[in-house]
């Protein structure tokens, strides 16, 4: 063998070894074996990261509670506001591929949280479940009894919001029956000069329309109808008469032009305030919006005759490999407790989930929402699309956009929702 070919053999052998090592490292990394070896970084003053959906005034309010937490514990908290789409999609991807920077995520989707539970830290030892009213605030619990989320904020969707001064100046009165609503109030608002539409329709990825629809489903079909739809096609189909009837009433109002074309939900608040719309279906967070220049001039009325009201809960969850697990648990414990929630409640537009939050902390308009939700015969039902979640939720959102501009396509919308429900929830 010549020296040259020996060198070549050695070169090949070395290369083979490199290839084998590289392949091994790649497989090791691809399998995520390194997850087990994540080292929690230590810092002299711990700083944790929180993701949530809030921006603007709601973010500012939340930061006040976080500021109090930092004062009490010495733990700094960095807040990152996400959009709905980003939180829905990118956070699961992050949690499935550690390491990641986030310690606490706040999200309103129980289905999403349960799907993510293999990547979350259980909060059984963090929260006191007995402190949440079991009739309508359920921590996200799986069949084994593990609790994966701490209920932090409750957003009631009590009904239509309006300006008191607008109603007074145009001689409008709050309806007590559905007939009064459709035959008196809506035509009266529509007839006001300069009005764009009687009812504002908000748009984001779709949720303000879904809240309005839930209002009609419960208002005309009863709270049990919504609970049945949340259970799925095994109990209630979207194509059933019980669903079609309230939806037909909604499309009848859409056809009559009482609803505006959907537009950015916050710009619609401005238009409501400016008198371009008469009423707007929104959640209790309405009062925290900066467009509401005078909270004492805003009020709401529930869907006439309803026995149900949607309640959406924002949950705090802890990723399994949170860089600062201990501090994250401290924060979640704090957020689910009465102190943090009282700070939030006092700022307005926030309903607490902890029973120790004093009713005296609420602003008058928020107290009105709390009283409405707690009145005799009223049932607080989990938000429909947040509960079902997944692909059905996006289908619901996009189908409602279709319905709002093409109410004559109700049959197609209900069939599509039924197909999507079967796909996700089975029969």
């Amino acid at each position, binding site marked *: 063998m010549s020296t040259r070919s020996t060198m070549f*053999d050695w070169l090949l052998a070395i290369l083979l070894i490199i290839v084998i090592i590289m392949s091994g490292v790649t497989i090791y990394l691809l399998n995520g074996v390194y997850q087990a070896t994540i080292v929690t970084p230590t810092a002299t003053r711990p700083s944790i990261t929180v993701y949530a959906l809030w921006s603007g005034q709601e973010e500012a309010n939340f930061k006040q509670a976080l500021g109090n937490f930092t004062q009490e514990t010495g733990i700094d908290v960095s807040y990152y506001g996400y959009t709905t789409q980003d939180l829905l999609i990118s956070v699961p991807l992050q949690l499935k591929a550690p390491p990641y920077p986030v310690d606490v995520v706040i999200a309103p989707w129980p289905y999403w949280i349960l799907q993510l539970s293999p990547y979350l830290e259980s909060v059984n030892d963090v929260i006191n479940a007995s402190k949440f009213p079991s009739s309508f605030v359920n921590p996200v619990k799986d069949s084994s009894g593990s609790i994966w989320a701490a209920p932090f904020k409750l957003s009631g969707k009590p009904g239509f919001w309006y300006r008191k001064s607008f109603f007074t100046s145009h001689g409008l009165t709050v309806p007590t029956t559905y007939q009064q609503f459709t035959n008196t109030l809506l035509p009266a608002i529509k007839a006001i000069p300069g009005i764009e539409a009687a009812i504002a329709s908000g748009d984001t990825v779709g949720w303000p329309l879904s809240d309005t629809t839930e209002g009609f489903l419960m208002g005309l079909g009863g709270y049990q109808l919504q609970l049945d739809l949340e259970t799925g096609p095994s109990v209630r189909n979207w194509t059933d008469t019980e669903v079609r009837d309230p939806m037909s009433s909604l499309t009848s109002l859409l056809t009559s032009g009482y609803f505006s074309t959907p537009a950015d939900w916050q710009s619609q608040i401005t238009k409501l305030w400016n008198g371009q719309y008469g009423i707007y279906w929104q959640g209790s967070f309405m009062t925290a919006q900066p467009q509401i220049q005078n909270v004492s001039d805003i009020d709401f009325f529930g869907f006439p005759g309803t026995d149900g009201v949607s309640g959406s809960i924002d949950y705090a969850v802890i990723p399994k490999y949170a860089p600062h697990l201990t501090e994250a648990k401290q924060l979640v414990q704090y957020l689910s407790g009465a102190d943090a929630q009282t700070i939030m409640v006092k700022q307005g537009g926030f309903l607490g989930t902890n029973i120790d939050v004093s009713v005296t902390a609420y602003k008058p308009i928020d107290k009105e929402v709390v009283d409405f939700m707690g009145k005799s015969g009223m049932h607080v039902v989990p938000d429909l699309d947040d509960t079902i979640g997944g692909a059905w939720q996006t289908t619901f959102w996009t189908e409602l956009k279709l319905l709002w501009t*093409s109410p004559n396509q109700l049959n197609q919308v209900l069939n599509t929702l039924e197909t999507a429900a079967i796909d996700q929830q089975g029969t």
Partner: protein
Amino acid sequence: MQQQKIPSLLSLILKTLRRILTVSWLFLIPAFLLLIIFVLYPVGDTIYQSFLAKGNFVGLQNFNYVLFEKAFPLINIPNIQLGAFPMGALIDNLLWIVIHLPLTVFFGLAFAVLLRDVKGGTIIKSIVFLGVVIPMVVGGLLFRFVYDPDAGVVNALLRLIGLGNYARDFTFYPQTALISIILGSVWIWTGFAMIVYSAGLQGIPVELYEAAEIDGASRWKTFWRITVPMLRSTTLVIITLTVLWELKVFDIVYVATLGGPGGASSVMAYDMYLEAFYSNNLGSASAIAVLLTVLTFGFAAYMVNRMSKM
């Protein structure tokens, strides 16, 4: 015996490798490794996944599901028969090609030819080319402003010409959502066609135009008899790249309409995203990916074959 066998086996492997490998191949190995890990393996795995549902082999079931059975099938036969939206993401992609392709090719060629000898033409070309430079996500956001019922330029124009009754957010209506984003994106892609055509025009010998002028050919005739035929290969390149872009379009749809309303403006790439990340259904998402790959690969292969014959 054992001790003798091991070196001989090793030397056999090395001998074989020596025979098939040269030093130049050795230097290519790192690149091939990366290609295998990041391209070939994912492609192979995607094809494999497209035949699975919850880990079980299901044959072509995923393909049947995404094409015809899911809530928003890729081909919505009843709606196609009625001429109603949504017709399905696959049909929407084809509509992108049918509408967007001729418009971008036409405007790209028109801008390139008309601005060729115009003073300040380069500045105008740069402005037109801005559409290609801006991120598609920004382009999608721009559409939302363009069609805004109050502040949008389209509705302002309608009001200006006395058609204010028709002013609305066109992306909210199933009949107009798809066409709105297709027409809007013509501006985004025209810059690309214009630049490639401009480069193609530089390659046409001036003598041809001079000869045509001496022969008394009109500008119109010169355009059809010299410019268009000489730009044939350029046109094929533009068509190829534009169709591939139209088949894989995602970001504009995602930002402007989220595929709505009611799936009326959805495209295959967006459907694939929904199946993968909302439904967590990797099998059907992979099936859409395979269909998309077959379409793009088939078209690209056909066009490359045509170009090689020119």
